[in-house]
């Protein structure tokens, strides 16, 4: 599973993309896995997940080939 990282998440993981071998069936489990790998994430104000370029709730299943992105707190505008 390929995951895109942005902003401070890119710095926390020291990578712009992650290739995750672990099977992670939904957004919630991806989030839990990331928190375990990168404990600094828990200091962020919020973290959202986008699947196929739309915000996705924790319950949303993940399929191979999905475009997954981790969205730390926004600061555009």
């Amino acid at each position, binding site marked *: 599973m390929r995951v895109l990282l942005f*902003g401070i998440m890119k710095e926390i993981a020291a990578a712009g993309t992650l290739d995750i071998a672990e099977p992670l069936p939904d957004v919630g489990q991806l989030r839990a896995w990331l928190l375990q790998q990168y404990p600094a994430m828990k200091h962020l104000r919020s973290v959202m997940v986008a699947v196929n370029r739309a915000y996705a709730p924790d319950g949303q299943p993940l399929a191979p080939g999905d475009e997954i992105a981790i969205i730390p707190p*926004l*600061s*555009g*505008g």
Partner: protein
Amino acid sequence: MEHWTRIDHSITVQEAVDFVQSPASGGIVTFTGTVRNQTQQRPVLKLFFECYEPMALLEMEKIVRAAKEKWPVQRMAILHVKGEKLPGEVVVVIAVAAAHRAAAFEACQFAIDTLKETVPIWKKEFFEDGEVWVAAHP
């Protein structure tokens, strides 16, 4: 084309107004955001904007659709920069044309408020003694 969304290295309010303007519209409201030279009294040297570009453009289009459902607006433009920006430079422009100005004011304010909440763009501030991703921590 009734709306225009764009992420680029440089944007201007004039191009946004030129796009939304038409002989059928009576009023155009714009919001232009620029780089401030300080944050809480600390001088800002520059900003860096990172964008999740394809999703940011989709979220901008959602803002346009939501605004058009709520208010009788005619044409809209939402432009945002990426990359490095210096104090005083333009970072975001929203332009809304409508037959009646109240609708244009409300839709423009809605669009910038929503953009800050939903469009995946991140801003890093550079100070003399360090740098920080804005709003990342509580």
